[in-house]
């Protein structure tokens, strides 16, 4: 088990190194930040002075090695767009907003998707099942930005129930969380339904029915408990996709989290912040996958012995 974990850890480190290389290369391929950050009237002398000041005149490999060396010490540089802050400070300032929104979105996904999947499986082939399938299909096919704008127009502008955008209390979070959860609800509901169908066909369920166990106990206790393994394994992906999904939703709802930050940083070619965001996202992804791998190995001996 230790060897398995050690190998996975090393693989995660290599992946992280590769990610730093890719993100560094891609951000620099998009052009120089001076063109995004300096006003149109900037003179050539001013441009050159800033290029020197920010060390952008050094060869790329030198810049990368310096970046890597500093990153190992937790220093991802100074933000070029949010002056007066380090890149990591800017990201950490925004991270709680994303986590709050993501957390509510996960909660919504679970609260809606699991019962929906269970009910759809229990009533397979009925109108309930078909309706759940339609909900799932819509959730997976509606673009999140469109859904977000529709939610704003209906529930904020039309009905006035919620604020349109921005950060605040719970009311500010409802619409973006629904928009963000829509895809996950669909995916999770379909997975739950599929797993529940297998469980409901199993021998122990038949036996329970023969023994006269009430149907709700069979469905919600015995079958769901066994079927839950499948959607649970999806949570790793779910948490990760909430980070990436936040890019679109936070832009539509002007929610000042890391998603909106990354868009602003990319537009402004703020290399240090783009790198900090991507590396943070990567670390979260790798960490979640590492934990999931470890749990798999713990549960299934075949994996850790492979």
């Amino acid at each position: 088990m230790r060897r398995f974990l050690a190998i996975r850890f090393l693989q995660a480190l290599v992946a992280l190194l590769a990610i730093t290389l890719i993100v560094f290369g891609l951000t620099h391929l998009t052009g120089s930040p001076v063109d995004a950050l300096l006003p149109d009237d900037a003179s050539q002398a001013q441009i050159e002075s800033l290029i020197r000041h920010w060390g952008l005149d050094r060869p790329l490999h030198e810049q990368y090695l310096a970046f890597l060396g500093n990153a190992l010490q937790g220093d991802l540089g100074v933000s070029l767009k949010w002056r007066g802050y380090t890149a990591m400070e800017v990201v950490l300032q925004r991270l709680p907003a994303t986590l709050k929104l993501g957390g509510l979105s996960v909660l919504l996904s679970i609260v809606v998707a699991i019962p929906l999947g269970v009910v759809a499986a229990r009533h397979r082939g009925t109108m309930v099942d078909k309706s759940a399938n339609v909900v799932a299909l819509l959730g997976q096919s509606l673009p999140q930005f469109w859904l977000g704008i529709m939610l704003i127009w209906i529930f904020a502008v039309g009905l006035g129930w919620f604020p349109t955008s921005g950060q605040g209390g719970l009311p500010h979070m409802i619409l973006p969380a629904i928009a963000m959860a829509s895809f996950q609800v669909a995916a999770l509901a379909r997975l739950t339904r599929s797993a529940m169908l297998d469980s409901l066909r199993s021998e122990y369920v038949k036996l329970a029915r023969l023994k006269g166990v009430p149907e709700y106990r069979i469905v919600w206790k015995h079958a769901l408990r066994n079927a839950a393994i499948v959607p649970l394994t999806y949570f790793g992906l779910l948490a990760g996709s909430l980070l990436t999904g936040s890019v679109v939703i936070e832009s539509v709802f002007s929610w000042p989290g890391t998603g909106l930050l990354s868009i602003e940083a990319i537009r402004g070619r703020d290399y240090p912040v783009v790198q900090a965001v991507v590396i943070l996202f990567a670390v979260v992804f790798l960490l979640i996958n590492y934990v999931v791998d470890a749990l798999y190995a713990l549960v299934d001996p075949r994996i850790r012995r492979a």
Partner: protein
Amino acid sequence: MNYARTSKLRVLLAVAGAALLAAAASAPVQAAGKVVLALDPPTADTNLFWNGTGERLPCFQALVGHDPITGKYNNSELAEEWSANEEFTEWTFRLKKNAEFHFGWGRVTAADVVHSYELTTGPDSTINSIEHLRAASVEALDDHTVVFRFETARTDYAFQHAGRGSMVVYSKAQFDKEGVDGYVSKPAGTAAYQYVERQPGAGVTFERVPDHWQGAVPDFEMLELRWIPEPATKLALLLAGEAHISDLPREIQADALAAGKAIVKSKNPAMSTGAIFNGMYGKTGDPAYRADLPWSDIRVREAMNRALNREEMIEILYGGRGEPVPSWLMDSRNEGYVPELKERFEGMYGYDPERARELLADAGYPDAFPDPTIPIVSSVLSGNPEFGTMAELLQVYFEAVGLQTEIREMDWATLGNLGRSREAYLISPVRNAPIRPTEAALVNFHTVRGTRYGGYESDMSEGLADKLEQTINPQERSRIAQEAFTYLFEQYADMPLAAVFAELTVDPTVVKDWTFPGVSTNSVSHYHLIAAAE
């Protein structure tokens, strides 16, 4: 309890929960006495003016002010008066003695001006045109007099200290005590609004200064600038009453007007727009010059100009609210204005597709050019969301007269990068915003040492710009500028389109009017003149 009953109970609980949540959420979001502006996020989200791109926060003032209606320089900000010596190599600013910083940081003195100048011209400064701000020496003659000395004549130096300029005045006392961190957390300015807080990525809030030193009393107690990147979300804010002023793109202004909102606009045109022939590196010996570009031929440039139905373009791009201009750099408020160009415009640039086809045939287009394709940049620039549509319109008009075109989508910075590498062989929409003084306009767009977004360059344009820079006699300067504008006009150096006002969509139940001249970097200014509806 059986399964069916449990299920019904859960549904009831869910409905009740949703109703409670909705009731809690419908709390009012609009605070009395506060005006909220939903705006595009700034290029640099910072309180450090010299680290931005010239978008001035409402809490700061510069040395030179502007009349809110005419836009002319006046002493409504920190300098009581200013003057230059005869050679224009020495500019002296006398400060108002009663100007006061916010939060008890004391009176404004010459030391504050020198300190602010040093910050602004420091190595990390990204502010607009610091080369033009930079002086050979700066000296505080006494507590309220500052002199800037130069090695060469600087005829328009007041511009550098005005609304589109490169410097605002910070408190030296605050810096000495708190360092730059003090400016980051709570900068003291001198305007009628003072800083309250910045929510990174979300916006900045200000409050009315009690007993402001100029006696200014803005109608609104609080002023919030909220950054909203999505136009549809901005419109939603306005319609939901959460914002009261917004810089909505023109294409969705109609939706706001239909919902009872109103437009307030700058008192003067805030920008001129058009399209330029990039890559015209025509100064003798310039290795980047390419004679084989279709638009290196003046007949092709004229044909492209005559292909444009400007009236229709102005209607589509600006809802008809734009004035056709014969030059996107020349302005009647600045030196060198040539009124005759307006009269000659229809004859030389007027919409005439037939003449355009004749000119192209005369130039041997397309066969005479190795690559006859005209690449048109489609880009979005903050403040000019219409540029993408403009590129598409250019394509339609060009193709209608037989020009081969292609749209190249790129961000504005990439275009700047190409220009910096002297490889911008493209046609691109452009703006002069706000209207630059003539000298800066000519140097920026028609010389090798100009900006990355340069247009037509030639020995003649270089020579005239040089001469203008070296001349201090006003009549002579005007004559040179007129010669330059006439020359560029006759060379079909660009494709001028329209003078456009800065427009903001407002909620008329909250905001009655806003008087601003349209001369600052981000077009809006004079926040203390936002008038509340009764």
